[in-house]
C-alpha cells in the first residue's frame, strides 16, 4: 500500500510552481472585473460571488499537482561511481575524529 502511495507524484518542479502562481493570480485578477458588474447591478454581493468563483476555479487548477506542472524536471548530475574513494573518505574521518573528541 505504501509503495502505491509513494508512486503518486505530489511535487511540482520550479517552472511548474511559477506557472501555478501566475495562473491563480491571473484568474483572481480577471475575476476582480466582477466589480464592474456589481457596480452596474448595484449589488456588491455579485462582485463577491464572482471573486469566490474565481477562487474556486484557481483552487481546482493550482492546488493539486497536476502533470502540467511537472513538465520541466530538474536535470540531476549523473551518479558518480565511487571508484576514487580516498578524497571522499578523508573528510568523513576528520568529522568522526571531531565527534570523538
Amino acid at each position: 500500500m505504501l509503495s502505491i502511495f509513494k508512486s503518486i507524484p505530489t511535487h511540482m518542479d520550479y517552472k511548474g510552481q511559477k506557472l501555478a502562481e501566475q495562473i491563480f493570480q491571473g484568474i483572481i485578477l480577471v475575476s476582480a472585473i466582477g466589480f464592474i458588474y456589481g457596480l452596474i447591478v448595484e449589488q456588491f454581493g455579485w462582485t463577491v460571488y464572482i471573486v469566490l468563483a474565481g477562487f474556486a476555479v484557481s483552487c481546482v487548477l493550482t492546488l493539486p499537482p497536476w502533470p502540467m506542472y511537472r513538465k520541466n524536471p530538474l536535470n540531476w548530475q549523473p551518479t558518480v561511481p565511487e571508484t576514487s574513494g580516498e578524497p571522499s573518505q578523508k573528510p568523513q574521518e576528520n568529522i568522526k575524529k571531531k565527534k570523538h573528541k
Partner: protein
Amino acid sequence: MNTVLSRANSLFAFSLSVMAALTFGCFITTAFKDRRVPVDIHVSKVMLKNVDDFTGPRERSDLGFITFDLSADILLTNICYLFTFLNNTILRLFFLIPGLLNQSQLIYFQINVVLWDKIVLRGENTKLNLRDMKSKYFFFDDGNGLRANKNITLSLSWNVVPNAGILPLVVGHGHVSLPFPEKYETAKSY
C-alpha cells in the same frame, strides 16, 4: 509553493487582498453620495395630555400625541450593498423632535426624541406615502415643557447601512415646526 498547503496559503492571501481592494472600491463608490431627498411632513392633529409619570415618584408629566402624514421617496439607487445574506440592508426612519424647553431665562435644552421608525430593506418600496400615522413611541416630557411650546420641529432622518464604510445619517430636506396647544386634553384614561 512546493506543497499543497503553501500553495493554498498564497492563494488565500492573494484572494483576500484582492477582496479587500474591491471592498475599498465599494466604499469609494458609495461614500460621497448625496442621499438627501425632499420630505413632505404634514401634521394633522396634535393632542397634549397631562398624565401620571409611571417611571418614578414624580408629579404629572406632559405626554404629546401627534398624528402626521408623511411622503418621501428614499432613494436607494446607486448604493452598493455588500453581503446581502447578512441582512444588514436596513434603512431606518425616525423623527427627531428638538423641543426647546425654556426652563429658565438662560438655559435651553434641545432634546431629540424618536417618535416613529421603519426599516426598509433593499428591494422594498422606497416611496413612503403614509397617511394618518400615529407615533410609535410615547412622547413624554419630564415636566411640563410641552405645554405651549412654540418650537417643536418634526423632521425625518434615516441611516443607510452600507456594505463598506461609514454609516451615514441622512437628514431629509423639509421639516415642519408646530406649536403645541396651551390646554391639556381632559381625558382621564388613555
